[in-house]
């Protein structure tokens, strides 16, 4: 009888873990879908990926078919408690402050003013930040933020160099996200 109870306990623990696992996969799968071949890894799966990052950091997005390494991978931030329902310049600026901190704290300077652009589901914004340190290992951060699936999301690419062509490519990728 005792043995049977133990087996039932183990069984119920197993079922709970399975349910948790399914819930996690469901959460991951609902962030984005895209016609591009993408993969999403949560911060818990990638060692050191959350170090020095805020709690809204979700994980890493990879474009499998992007040949240029620096464009193929972006950090994902999901702002679950966002009250607003559309992006404007102020909200976009607040996200960069939230993710990185101010220029005086970080040495990251906004290169040009925040640019808003149209998407099928409203507006999104793009920001390019440059590290004031000339010897920085990650000289640029390119951010696109907007609403996907009704959730406020930002993607951050770490770039060694950046061209208008790169930015156009990443914006096209963003526009294909659903």
């Amino acid at each position, binding site marked *: 009888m005792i043995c049977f109870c133990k087996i039932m306990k183990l069984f119920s623990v197993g079922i709970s873990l399975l349910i948790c696992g399914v819930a996690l996969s469901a959460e991951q799968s609902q962030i984005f879908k895209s016609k591009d071949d993408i993969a999403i890894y949560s911060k818990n799966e990638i060692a050191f990926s959350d170090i020095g990052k805020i709690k809204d950091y979700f994980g890493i997005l990879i474009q*499998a078919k992007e040949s240029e390494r620096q464009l193929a991978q972006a950090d994902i931030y999901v702002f679950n408690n966002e009250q607003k329902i559309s992006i404007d310049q102020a909200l976009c600026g607040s996200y960069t402050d939230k*993710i990185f901190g101010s220029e005086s704290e970080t040495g990251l300077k906004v290169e040009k003013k925040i640019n808003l652009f149209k998407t099928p589901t409203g507006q999104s914004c793009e920001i390019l930040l440059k590290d004031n340190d000339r010897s920085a290992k990650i000289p640029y951060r390119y951010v696109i933020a907007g609403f996907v699936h009704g959730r406020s999301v930002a993607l951050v690419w770490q770039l060694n160099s950046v061209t208008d062509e790169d930015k156009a490519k990443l914006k096209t990728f963003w526009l294909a996200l659903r």
Partner: protein
Amino acid sequence: MYYSKFFILLSALLISNSTQIANAQAKNEICFSTEAEYNEILASNKAPLILQKLPLYLGGESMIKGKVAVSLSFVNGVIKFYVNAATMIGDFKITTSNENRVKVCVDDAKLKLEFTKGPAQEATLLGPKKISIKGFDIETMNLKDFTSLDAAVSERASASAKTKSNSSSAGGNQ
């Protein structure tokens, strides 16, 4: 009745003692975020052996977990933390990196990195040349070895996303 009073007093005493111990440990902690502050600490001989010389390059690899390269160096008088790590997921390699200004705090047993954003990260000192951070034991190394480890971490594994892409892109609907 007397027993319960005795236990309440005993627990109060224990809590008070542990707070005093914690305070004493906190007093041993030294912190710096600028080169000037670091030089003061060096001059007063309070820096632990692992921080006697900056820049500090650390790295390590594990068959199961992957590779990591970490550095602490001064740039324009402020200290910067850099991490570049590769994680193996099955046969696939995923890399991540970050570079931040930090405040470094150390005591006899721990090294703490306080970031502008996000929670602080603690590492355990395992000797003059080794620390444990996020379950990785990493050791000091010279610039040449660090540079090659950093490059090895960054090497792109081909088609690393393919297997998982189906599951992560299939579930959404708008």
